[in-house]
């Protein structure tokens, strides 16, 4: 048994002169729900298409259970794909769509029928066999697309922004459902999205990509709490990113103030960047604050207030808090040591 089901080693891809993927190394374990996350044009879909066999990498090797499969055409790979716009066949009904792959494998009719039924049950669409694709809603088409891929019992399922076309409420339901389906069938899901919340909700591991490079690989908590650089911090959630100096281990200077933190291993007086999540900042009385400033704006967001507070050095902090300060009021800001995340400065 191989440790990894899919491995990318030094995968590079160029379209003409334009390099869209620069040296991607990635190892994916069996039964893992892994998400490629990044803004559009970051190379995540290209990576997925290389794994699916729809694109050839310019350089590098792709392994499936230890075997190199660069040249294996898509129809021979034990990998199935759920396409961005579902790509269901409009000329045949739901049953024929799901049965498509099985019929090509020349499976016996009664087995096909059984398996299609089973799949419709898995995606909660029992009784839809005879329906036309065009008569289905987006969410239903989505489920049929998943059923059509899963019925072939692939070892790996690729999903290319499968929820992108659905409305918010349906998207949230489908996120949970997808995760359930993945746990039930117990295969590897490789999921592509630009929606950070989707990635954090569903994944075992998240791969944050930007401009054809992997920025960070980690579980959702690590990605959110310990982003390695400004790009990841900015892309995942909201955050205050401010320049700082690592005076020594466990001590950082931000906005001319010394703060205790939990990071070490930097050089003395190294220039770094600091991330503080808006919900990790407490608003206190001016004299108790580590930083002092004026409240610039207050917006009610339902669960909390979103406030902008300009400190005396001119940096504007975004704060999420259930305590409300008044606009124009002077307040103090209090930040716990473990709320301060130190990142290497890039560029």
């Amino acid at each position, binding site marked *: 048994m191989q440790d990894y089901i899919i491995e990318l080693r030094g995968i590079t891809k160029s379209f003409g002169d334009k390099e869209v993927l620069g040296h991607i190394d990635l190892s994916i374990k069996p039964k893992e729900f892994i998400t490629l996350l990044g803004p559009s044009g970051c190379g995540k879909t290209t990576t997925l298409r290389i794994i699916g066999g729809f694109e050839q990498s310019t350089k590098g090797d792709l392994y499936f259970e230890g075997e190199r499969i660069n040249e294996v*055409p898509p*129809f021979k790979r034990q990998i199935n794909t759920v*396409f961005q716009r579902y790509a269901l066949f409009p000329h*045949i009904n739901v049953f024929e769509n799901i049965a*498509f792959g099985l019929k090509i494998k020349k499976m016996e009719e009664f087995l096909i029928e059984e398996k299609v039924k089973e799949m419709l049950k898995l995606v909660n669409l029992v009784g839809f066999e005879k329906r036309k694709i065009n008569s289905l809603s987006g969410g239903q088409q989505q489920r049929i697309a998943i059923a*059509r891929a899963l019925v072939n019992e692939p070892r790996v399922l690729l999903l290319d922004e499968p929820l992108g076309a659905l409305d918010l409420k349906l998207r949230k339901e489908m996120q949970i459902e997808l995760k359930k389906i993945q746990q039930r069938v117990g295969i590897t899901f490789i999921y592509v999205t630009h929606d950070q919340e989707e990635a954090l909700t569903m994944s075992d591991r998240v791969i944050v990509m930007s401009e054809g490079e992997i920025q960070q690989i980690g579980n959702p908590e690590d990605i959110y709490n310990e982003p390695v650089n400004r790009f990841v911090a900015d892309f995942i959630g909201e955050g205050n990113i401010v320049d700082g100096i690592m005076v020594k281990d466990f001590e950082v200077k931000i906005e001319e103030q010394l703060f205790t933190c939990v990071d070490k291993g930097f050089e003395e007086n190294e220039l770094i960047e600091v991330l503080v999540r808006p919900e990790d900042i407490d608003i206190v009385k001016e004299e108790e604050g580590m930083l002092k400033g004026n409240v610039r704006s207050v917006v009610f967001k339902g669960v909390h207030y979103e406030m902008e507070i300009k400190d005396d050095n001119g940096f504007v902090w975004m704060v999420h808090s259930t305590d409300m300060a008044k606009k124009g009021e002077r307040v103090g800001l209090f930040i716990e040591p473990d709320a301060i995340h130190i990142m290497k400065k890039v560029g």
Partner: protein
Amino acid sequence: MNKKWLSIPYALWSLIFSIIPIIIITIYSFCKRSPYGKIIYEFTLDNYKQFLEPIYLNVLWRSILLAAISTTACLVIGYPMAMIISKTSIKKRNVLIMLFVVPLWTNFLLRTYAWMVLLRDQGAINQFLIYLGIIKEPLQLLYNPGAVVMGMVYNFLPFMVLPIYSVLSKMDNSLVEAAQDLGATSGEVFRKVIFPLSMPGVVSGLIMVFMPAVSTFVISDLLGGGQTVLLGNLIQNQFLVARNWQFGSAISMIMMVLILIAIRISSKYQDEEGGGLW
């Protein structure tokens, strides 16, 4: 302003040049003929009965057969062409489509005459084959049904290629990828996905070629040399030579019904996707 007014020029046009003539032809086809060819407005079915004579049924059969052969040939040649065009890059695509469309700018008669020049005994093809020593005597290439089919295919091929091309180029490539992903080889992708989805274009093409092919008289006149009489020739003769407008009208009606049946049958394959030309 009411938009309905905009349709008036078209409505007038089709009233004067389509609907009224059809009504006149319908009336003529049921009229009696005086010995000198004058129309006598008395109801009769004689004109239609006359058509049931074997000699005319033969013409009907020959017209349908030649039109069907040409249409099939156009499909067999045109489909791969449409596929190749739809797969090339946009720059080359425009050049290829131009190659198809440019001949259409030349006069139809001129194009057909050009084939006479190529196919006749002293024509380029025969001369070339003799020069190569493959044949000694010139082949009889002109004035036979083969030449007529040739002329039809040449003239009507664009009407097959363009609607198929238009459907294929609009087809979502992810459908092809999805089929591959589900294990289909390129042959299976074509049979199970590409071809069925291109049916609207194919049907459009079939009608667009069959209609002019079954009714042509110029091609059969020039390339068939009067040896291959088709429905179109028959109608032309009845109106211009035999001066039997009543019989000519009856044949026209029969041909029209034939075409309407063809459209009716094919429209069943059309309503799904809409593609093609109508």
